[in-house]
């Protein structure tokens, strides 16, 4: 069930899209629904309990977009505006479901600060090389070694799923959906500095998780050779 959206180059500009939606142009609406709903589902999933519930949030969002398009003033991009509606809809749905995520604020908490790389990886104070890597991070198999790429994707998805909600929401918008820090500020009402704290910790966690994975399969391979 592949429904590929058009590439950015052929995607109509906001002004055309808004005008066509206001004229009830079904092709324009279908294009937007098919291009954006997948990413919207993924983001909504961080606020609600089930995939079904996330799909409902996306559906409700599009209905709100239909109702609100005449009042859209173009102060942000159309997509950012749609995502703002999505986040508000998803938050309300999450509250109804009793999700205990920080609904009013996605601001970092104390546990989001502090070193993101285990300090024992570096020489400590007093040492001639204080603050430098004791041992370089190990090289990873190159992305071109595609036998691994499916498993790498699975590891990365699993790592993102383990993140605290606020970190997962930010890394999903920034790195999966490709929003700029400014757009994420508009969508989530969170300062650039605060979102960077969350994004940084999230990326470091995913890197650490992938590092452990590569170390484990490396050890397995070595162990396997030793056993034969």
């Amino acid at each position, binding site marked *: 069930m592949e429904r590929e959206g058009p590439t950015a180059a052929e995607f109509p500009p906001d002004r055309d899209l808004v005008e066509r939606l206001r004229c009830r142009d079904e092709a324009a609406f279908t294009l937007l629904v098919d291009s954006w709903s*997948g990413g919207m589902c993924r983001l909504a999933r961080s606020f609600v309990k089930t*995939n079904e519930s996330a799909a409902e949030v996306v*559906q409700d969002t599009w*209905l709100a977009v239909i109702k609100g398009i005449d009042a859209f003033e173009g102060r942000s991009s159309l997509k950012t505006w749609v995502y703002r509606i999505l986040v508000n809809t998803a938050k309300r749905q999450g509250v109804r479901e009793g999700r205990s995520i920080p609904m009013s604020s996605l601001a970092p908490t104390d546990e989001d600060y502090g070193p*993101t790389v285990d300090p024992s990886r570096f020489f400590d104070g007093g040492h001639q090389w204080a603050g430098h890597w004791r041992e*370089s991070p190990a090289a990873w198999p190159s992305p071109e070694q595609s036998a691994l790429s499916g498993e790498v994707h699975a590891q990365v998805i699993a790592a993102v799923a383990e993140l605290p909600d606020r970190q997962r929401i930010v890394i999903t918008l920034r790195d999966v959906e490709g929003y700029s820090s400014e757009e994420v500020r508009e969508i989530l009402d969170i300062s650039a500095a605060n979102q960077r704290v969350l994004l940084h910790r999230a990326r*470091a966690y995913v890197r650490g998780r992938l590092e452990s994975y590569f170390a484990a399969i490396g050890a397995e391979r070595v162990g396997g050779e030793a056993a034969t």
Partner: protein
Amino acid sequence: MSALDCDDLVELVTEYLDGALDAETERRFVDHLAGCDPCSRYLDQIRQITQTLGSLSPEALPDAARQALLDAFRNWKR
């Protein structure tokens, strides 16, 4: 000016990639990278994470929900 060590650099990679470092810190960041293979590798691995995340294929809206939306749009009257 205190030195920018490896354990400082790893905490600045997100700001660096966002172009959010002040000019002086960015210069020290780049200088450090130029002479430090482990930190270059660390930065490459963070980049690899962001690239992998950006290449994940989107989930799709269930067909029934999609159809209901298109119907709703069709029936939407001024």
